[in-house]
């Protein structure tokens, strides 16, 4: 078996004949490509953006002062006196209160999910990567919180702490941390047993390096998808807490709180009273559909 290899051009003989180079697409590029061609997600994504922008620019676009009460103008129907969506039980403009209320409701929807992703994600990656007793300890602690239905847990914590927007956010963060931790742990455990992690260890990489370069990139996907699906749940739960009086205190506008205070007046102007709920409903649906679209775009087996 004589080798014909010489020192000059040793390995050209083994060169791969590559097919003509196709356009190489990375993972994130392919995600954006799929998203760009998904009309439903794009449309609802635009709606979400519109809602967020409207809430952010409330001071600029709100027609009236959301706190200004009016004794004669109480519970007026759509269109009365320039109030596009009527007035509430204290005579305040519904549209303006909706816009300002959006800021509270949206932040109570997004902020807890953000914190839960950070905390739960970190715990899950640590547990999943460390394995063994550390993992068991973390997951069992999470299991205890899993034993509560989410509404109950949120109400319990917020209720015990006395309500208010801060406590509400804290309660919701505690509700979402265990599931997020679980998602991160599952993803990390799956990645951890793959050979390229061993190969990275064999190259001499420290645990921190391995997590940063090899684990995080692969775990971030499922975590992000799950987080996006939590936002709509969070908006619902947050407004639920406000409905029970555990969210912001009046007179600060908030969709759930508005629904609660308007409840007595459904016999007078039913349509106006239903409006805050419509806002919650639409926002929640849009976030849901966008998150579904994100999942479809990102969750592709490579």
């Amino acid at each position, binding site marked *: 078996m004589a080798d014909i290899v010489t020192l000059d051009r040793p390995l050209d003989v083994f060169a791969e004949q590559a097919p003509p180079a196709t356009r190489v697409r990375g993972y994130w590029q392919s995600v954006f490509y799929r998203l760009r061609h998904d009309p439903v997600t794009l449309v609802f994504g635009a709606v979400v953006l519109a809602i967020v922008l409207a809430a952010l620019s409330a001071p600029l676009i709100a027609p009236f002062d959301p706190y200004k009460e009016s004794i004669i103008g109480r519970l007026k129907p759509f269109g009365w006196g320039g109030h596009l969506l009527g007035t509430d039980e204290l005579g305040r403009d519904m549209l303006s209160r909706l816009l300002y209320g959006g800021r509270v409701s949206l932040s109570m929807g997004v902020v807890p999910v953000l914190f839960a992703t950070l905390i739960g994600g970190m715990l899950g990656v640590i547990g999943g990567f460390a394995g063994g007793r550390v993992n068991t300890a973390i997951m069992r602690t999470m299991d205890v919180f899993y034993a509560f239905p989410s509404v109950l847990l949120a109400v319990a914590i917020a209720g015990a702490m006395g309500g208010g927007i801060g406590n509400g956010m804290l309660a919701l963060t505690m509700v979402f941390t265990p599931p997020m931790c679980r998602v991160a742990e599952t993803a990390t455990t799956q990645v951890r047993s793959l*050979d390229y992690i061993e190969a990275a260890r064999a190259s001499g990489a420290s645990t921190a390096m391995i997590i940063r370069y090899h684990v995080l990139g692969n775990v971030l996907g499922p975590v992000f998808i799950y987080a996006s699906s939590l936002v709509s749940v969070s908006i619902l739960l947050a407004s639920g807490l406000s409905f029970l009086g555990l969210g912001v205190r009046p007179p600060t506008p908030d969709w759930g709180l508005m629904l609660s205070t308007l409840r007595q007046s459904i016999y007078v102007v039913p349509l106006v009273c239903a409006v805050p709920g419509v806002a919650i409903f639409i926002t929640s649906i849009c976030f849901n559909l966008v998150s579904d679209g994100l999942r479809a775009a990102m969750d592709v087996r490579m």
Partner: protein
Amino acid sequence: MAAVIAQIPVLDPRDCGGPQQPLLIARDLRKHFPVKGARGKSVQAVDGVSFTVRKGETLGIVGESGCGKTTLARLLLHLVVPDAGELVFDGDAVNAPDGLSVNALRRQVQMVFQDSYSSLNPRMPVRDSVAFGPFIQGKQKPEARELACDILAKVGLDPDLFGARYPHELSGGQKQRVNIARALATGPRMVILDEPVSALDKSVEAQVLNLLRALKRQLNLTYVFISHDLNVVRYISDRVLVMYLGRVVELGPVDAIFKDPRHPYTRALLASRPSMDPERRIEEPPITGDPPNPIDPPPGCRFHTRCPFAEAVCEATDPTLELWQGPESHIASCHMRDPGSGHSQAGNA
């Protein structure tokens, strides 16, 4: 003349001890994995394995699934910490207070993994996967990337065409080349290859094997090549080590092993290769039964439950590997080879 020049080994600047000193000595390596739930019981994956690897040779390690080859591979790189035994790399004891640290070992020894699908990060372009090793070992990112491109070219993948690709855009053979490139990127002296061609088509397998041989020559490497495929091992190895249930049963030069197998297990393995030649009839009795459970290995010689020559002494005492007398010696661990063992065929085989 060019071929002669090509054969003179170039001494590696990190070499200490010269060509006579074995590059790797493994002494009595042992690794037992405790079984979850059954206290006291453990999977005896590697149970007292000793061998040496000379500089510039290819040692092939053969055995069935479950004989401990993969665990052994990981022990050699300290990816799994041995329960007992020691490793000596070019004269320095590994993980000993005044010897080589594990990190230093990993700069000189690297591994190519079996499963080409899971051994590359699906989210990283291939060039970055290869550059990761040099990057960890201190190079800056651009320098590491350039090094990666060089190595990719050496394994036959044009870095401009293949460098930016993702693993899912490569064929099995291309992925394995990338794995080889990754192992070579840090400039090791020894490469452990764990079933590198098992998952490839036959034609691709031949290409990769030839590539490995050429690379070994050009880069002055030493290989430990693990496989269950006897033909592949025969093609690429200089010496062969046969493993069974965590122990070494035979060790010797490749031609000697294949022409004159001395352990009944080796004989049965070789005989079980299908042959198209009606002249090559199988004369040895085949192996019967399933391999025993590595949690509860049979007492005495571990092969005695399937050995057609088993006798009472085989169940009673462990056979010892004959004394290793140099690189050409051909030794087996069998009572039939040991004149004083009490086996009826002792001294005759």
